[in-house]
């Protein structure tokens, strides 16, 4: 088991954002958390990255309890996140953003390795290669999404957390982003995905969990959930 979340509770002040959530991610999988706005998906992602304090429960990564580990130490273990809203460093160039991805890598001084990873990112996102010197803030939403994902990959993660990669993108681009997620996974990176675009996400993932108001209400393989009538009615627009 690469990631195990057990009985996790997170609060914002007195408001419970997530309640007693448990789920696992196995090595090599794509696992998706699906849910409506405010269901607690982003909170879960932020907690795994250490940006939100845990009230109860544990997070175990690669056999190590990381529940209380400071956020900046987690990338070193191999957890990397492309956050909701992309979080690109708008005043930095595309290249500087990608280099920020290597900030915590122990082998960051090995130019050959870094160059290989950079080439791999450029292969996945050729658009970034054309724009290495452009300021991230002057790029379109889709390009910034690619940059955020590319930056997360530059950390060479064991587990890639993708928070709403399709948010605000045109349908054609959404398709492309999901293709790339599948490609990243087939190259050997485990992916934990959070999505509102349930149809695409379920099609692409090995397993999925459905979150409602801070609790997991259903789980199963992507295929099984996509065929489930209740899931269809609530998340796939009924007659899909």
């Amino acid at each position: 088991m690469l990631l195990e979340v057990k009985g996790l509770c997170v609060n914002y002040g007195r408001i419970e954002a997530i309640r007693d959530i448990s789920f696992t991610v196995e090595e090599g999988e794509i696992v998706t958390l699906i849910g409506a706005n405010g269901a607690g998906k982003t909170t879960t992602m932020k907690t795994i990255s250490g940006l939100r304090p845990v009230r109860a429960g544990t997070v175990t990564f690669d056999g190590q309890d990381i529940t209380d580990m400071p956020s900046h130490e987690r990338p070193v273990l191999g957890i990397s996140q492309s956050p909701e809203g992309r979080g690109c460093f708008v005043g930095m160039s595309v290249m500087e953003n990608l280099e920020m991805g290597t900030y915590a890598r122990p082998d960051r001084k090995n130019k050959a390795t870094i160059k290989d990873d950079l080439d791999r990112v450029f292969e996945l996102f050729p658009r970034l290669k054309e724009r290495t010197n452009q300021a991230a803030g002057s790029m379109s939403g889709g390009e910034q999404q690619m940059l955020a994902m590319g930056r997360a990959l530059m950390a060479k993660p064991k587990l890639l957390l993708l928070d709403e990669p399709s948010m605000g993108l045109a349908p054609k681009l959404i398709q492309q982003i999901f293709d790339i997620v599948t490609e990243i996974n087939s190259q050997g990176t485990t992916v934990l995905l959070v999505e509102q675009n349930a149809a695409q996400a379920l099609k692409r993932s090995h397993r999925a969990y459905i979150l409602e108001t801070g609790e997991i209400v259903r789980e199963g393989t992507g295929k099984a959930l996509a065929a489930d009538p209740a899931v269809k009615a609530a998340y796939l627009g009924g007659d899909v």
Partner: protein
Amino acid sequence: MQFLIDNFAALTITGLAIGAVYALIALGYTFVYGVLRLINFAHSEVFMYGSFAAVWVVMILGGNVSGSTGQVIFWVAMMFVAAMLMSGFVAVVIERVAYRPLRKRNAPPLIALISAIGASFVLSEAMGLREKIARWFGLDDTLRDYVSNSRNNVPLPTIIKPQGVFNLFGYEVTNVDIFVIVGAIAMMIVLDQFVSRSRLGRGIRAVAMDPEAAALMGVNRDRVIRVTFLVGGVMAGAAAVFYLLKIGITRYDVGFILGVKAFTAAVLGGIGNLRGALLGGFVLGLAENYGSAIVGTQWKDVVSFLLLIVILLFRPTGLLGESLGKARA
């Protein structure tokens, strides 16, 4: 007006020299603001402690200074080391004592501002009352040269004798003028390179732009904040040496008006923007010199703040705009 025309070169050079000092102090305000969105009002005292360290190191090491180029270089180097160490230290202590505990408890920004003003008073009065403080410890005799008349001006022995180097439209530009202006610009180039090229510098910019995304990249925010205060403090220490070489005296409350001016320079150039601090410092230094030549020296401070108001009316984010990252790339 005739006075301004007759003395234009002199006013320009002194304006640039004092502007360079403003700019170096302004960097500390702008740097901390960029990372924490906090105005560190105690930064003026960081400068003041640096200036005392520079004077004291000359006194401790036997202070009668004259003579050879080698000696001059030695004394100036000692002043820089002492002032930068002292200012850097004071800045880091302020962060540790006055800000970090509040940050850990998620205090609203207004509370940090009040803490900053409090820290400023404590530090300034501690220096102003250093004779009494020494007496508590029974050290007032031993330290008499350093603590007596603690509310008066403290002069720096002449380290560099001002000598005309070249003539600019009737004004003898001195070696001190050149050293201060060139030295301050060089410091700023070093800082600019540090911020844009080094790993830690990039970490600082990343935290300034998006603290959460920076944490996701593995940037340690507390460490970045400490370095930010340290670098701002070191720059203020350098500013203190340049100021002493040009002006020749310091005192316990020297930080107040200089701090306000440097803060003005930071806002003028665009708070959070390093190059803005440089530009703001020079513009302010020149404007107050030209302005006071036209309307009289007693109006000097009025001129600076009028300039600030006018510029903010037309460019509310300052000359170069806000933010540590946006002016670059």
